[in-house]
């Protein structure tokens, strides 16, 4: 069966099109109308219209609303993807980012006319620096991976400035896949070191891998098993001993707010995910924001421009953008980064304050440990002991009954809940990586734990009820192999 003759839940916007409709009206043109062929020449103009759909406003709104209703989302129920920190997105922050004073400002506006925007960027950078113990922060990277790349480019610029860019960056095998991909884009060779059974860095293996060509080591702390690297001081000293830098992947910063400041314990640089730790929505795949924080010895290399404050107003304004940065790696975004996302993170930090941020971390850890305690009997728990903000179960026991981690994930969807991250980290078989976040109530955690326990019991008594899942979602299990084989990434019909 091809996609075209399949049964359809919601037609594409192209199938809904009806010639002659439009959903938006422009004012009457009040200047002479230009004839494109006369102005641009027959060679330069389109010979056929692009084939955009034709619908009225209610057609469009209903189409996308019907599609919206097919989504799980965090306003509805728990979304416990490990390392994704799917916490609640405060509503007031959305309103604030929509204020015309932010939404309608052009990035080329003169500084005197956008003091509020530059001020917000400056102070958000300061707040992030103080939260993490770093000295300077660039807000320019548009997502976490962009932050990693920016960080690795800063590493490269630092070493080049000291005579040798070096060749290698070390990553533990428990790292997020973005780490090796980012360091490769920055021109480095990935050296993977094994982690111990608890996911912690194998300090001996690290020591053997370090040499004068080690540019940096990328560390995720707490690591992807939800375990704090308690020998991190040793790790940092070893890396610094060969002149390397230590990078923190800040994906798991939620566990550390107010408890550990990475800059205090020797990390040289890090990135933050505003769309994880600082509550800005993920938008179904972005926009995110991945600022990079560095210690003083790396500040000159951060992207250009940097928001600055000059209380003496020697340039006539208090806040300005510093463009003249000769050692900078350059620009990593067409403008200054995802500014409207920054507005939301700024609002979040001010709403919580110092004690509130620490309570975020404490409750993220409490919630994760509560779920771990409730589930440890019914699933294998490879890493014993208390976890930080997330933990990893293994469905090995269930797999022996023919129920894989993926089946358990799909069955959870039938309960109206979202699944954990599955098959990551790679070092755990049949991994279910669970991060509830602090914004889930005990009742919500219990609902999730009850569902997972019921699924574990079903895996024993009637495995086929799990492997047949999902049965209540808009579509049943989708044929991913066919999608890759009969590639259809754009609608070809009218």
């Amino acid at each position, binding site marked *: 069966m091809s996609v075209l003759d399949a049964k359809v839940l919601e037609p594409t916007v192209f199938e809904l099109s009806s010639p002659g409709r439009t959903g938006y009206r422009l*004012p009457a043109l009040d200047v002479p109308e230009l004839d494109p062929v006369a102005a641009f020449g027959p060679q*330069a103009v389109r010979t056929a219209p692009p084939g955009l759909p034709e619908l009225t406003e209610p057609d469009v709104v209903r189409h996308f609303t019907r599609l919206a209703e097919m989504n*799980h989302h965090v306003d509805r129920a728990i979304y416990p993807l490990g390392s994704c920190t799917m916490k609640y997105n405060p509503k007031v922050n959305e*309103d604030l980012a929509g204020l015309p004073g932010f939404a309608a400002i052009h990035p080329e506006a003169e500084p005197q006319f956008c003091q509020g925007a530059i001020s917000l960027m400056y102070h958000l950078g300061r707040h992030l620096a103080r939260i993490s113990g770093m000295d300077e922060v660039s807000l320019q990277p548009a997502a976490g991976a962009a932050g990693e790349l920016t960080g690795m480019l800063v590493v490269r610029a630092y070493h080049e400035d000291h005579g040798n860019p070096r060749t290698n960056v070390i990553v533990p095998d428990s790292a997020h*896949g973005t780490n090796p991909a980012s360091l490769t884009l920055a021109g480095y060779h990935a050296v993977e070191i094994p982690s111990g059974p608890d996911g912690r860095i194998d300090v001996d293996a690290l020591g053997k891998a370090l040499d004068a060509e080690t540019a940096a080591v990328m560390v995720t702390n707490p690591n992807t098993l939800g375990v704090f690297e308690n020998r991190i001081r040793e790790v940092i000293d070893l890396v610094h001993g060969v002149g390397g830098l230590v990078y923190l992947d800040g994906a798991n910063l939620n566990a550390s707010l107010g408890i550990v400041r990475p800059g*205090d314990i020797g990390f040289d640089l890090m990135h933050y995910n505003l769309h994880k730790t600082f509550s800005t929505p993920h938008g179904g795949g972005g926009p995110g924001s991945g600022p990079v924080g560095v210690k003083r010895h790396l500040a000159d290399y951060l992207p250009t421009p940097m928001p600055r404050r000059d209380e003496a107003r020697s340039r006539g304004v208090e806040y300005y953008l510093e463009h003249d940065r000769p050692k900078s790696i350059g*620009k990593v975004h067409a403008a200054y980064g995802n500014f409207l996302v920054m507005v939301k993170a700024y609002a979040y930090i001010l709403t919580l304050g110092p004690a509130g941020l620490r309570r975020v971390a404490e409750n993220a850890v409490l919630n994760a440990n509560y779920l771990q*305690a409730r589930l440890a009997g019914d699933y294998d728990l490879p890493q014993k002991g208390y976890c930080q903000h997330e933990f990893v179960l293994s469905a090995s026991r269930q797999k022996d009954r023919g129920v894989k981690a993926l089946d358990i994930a799909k069955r959870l969807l039938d309960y109206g809940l979202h699944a954990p991250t599955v098959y990551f980290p790679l070092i755990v078989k049949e991994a279910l990586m669970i991060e509830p976040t602090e914004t889930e109530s005990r009742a919500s955690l219990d609902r999730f734990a009850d569902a997972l326990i019921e699924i574990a019991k079903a895996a024993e008594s009637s495995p086929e009820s799990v492997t047949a899942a999902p049965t209540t979602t808009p579509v049943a299990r989708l044929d991913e192999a066919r999608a890759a084989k009969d590639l259809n*990434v754009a609608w070809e019909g009218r």
Partner: protein
Amino acid sequence: MPYVPNTERDRDEMLEVIGASSVEDLLRDVPAELRAKAPLEVPGPLSEIELVRHVSELAARNRVEGVVSFLGGGIYDHAVPAAVRHVVRLPHFYTAYTPYQAEASQGTLQTIYEFQSLIVRLTGMDVANASMYDGATAAAEACLMAIDATKRRKVVVSASVSPAARRVLRTMLAPDAVDIVEVPLRHGVTDLAALDGALPDAAALLLQHPNYFGLLEPAREIGERVSSSGALLVASVDPVSLALLAPPGSYGAEIAVGEGQSLGSPMGFGGPLLGFMAARKKHVRRLPGRIVGATVDAHGRRGYVMTLQTREQHIRREKATSNICTNEGLVALTAAVYLSLLGERGFRELAVQVTSKAHYAADALSRIAGVRLCFPGAFFREFAVELPVDAGRVRDELARAGIWPGIPCGRDYDGMDRSLLVSVTETHSRADIDSLASALEAIIATRRVS
């Protein structure tokens, strides 16, 4: 704590289930000597009332009321239809994650598929991805694709590509020690003779069409030259122009990229933006980032999944085509809603209005004594004018009258200190344009800034 539901009683009961004495007990893996010594030095907590007051004050320190702005250069002040804003604010979309569980994410997946389809139609290419951070990083990633495809280590870029995109390109290509050759301009467009000299052994030509100055490039001639050199043509295009102009697929582009902010998103001080990327089908396995494909479910119903994931970082790790994962999903949805709402007729009408008003403005300004268009060629939505006086000073003078006349060109182009890049959209009325012309004329006539 408005966002943390646990009460003290919840906490105590949960600790009992865990078998821990306190939250501090749970943190015992964190060595005492590594702990923060003092509470974080950040302001707050603020109540919602205090927060709204403070942040609204910051917003009010950005001047948007009572300003007529002609700033463009890649980011444009188009009207955003109310229906677009409302759809994008559905929490089903904005509070969802990347669609890892396809069966519970069909809304996001189908909208991405529709976005890809719309981009393919506008660009005349075969395939498109789910979005990139912005037009600048999309262009740089396209050049990296071309380097991989051709195994050549030189990228040629026209000086008419936006200065910001060229800066991002330099940053992103720096580690590969790729030779970046910039082709100079002749009458504001790519100098074909210089291009011929630069193309041998090049992996790609990065061309912007219409270019930074709003001018139409000789795209067909360039496309032929690039393809006969064995390089790939990477075309950076303004999506609004594609309602009227021949699409990149018609003049030999192998990869088309661009900035999609103009499709229903506010300017937002330059972010979030929307990078889009489309390509010929033969390059699909080199594309960076997410791609959504149509398929069927176990009952033969149509559905959508993320596909060709073996290109991506979470599987390929250091061998991935790119490191991008989170992209600009919600902004891609915005563009899909916007294009669906305007539709075939509305989008064409938009482009006609934009270019008609830009030409009206160019006529009005070039009638002023001492003012002339910098370049003779055809332009789409913006144009550079040369003034008899320094452009920066004119800008500062006009700002007092609430008019932002455009971006001074001298910062990015040598010898253009007296030139302004003036950009017009459908939101400008004839009266707005007339007020720019008369204010500019008055300044020049009184030589207040000469």
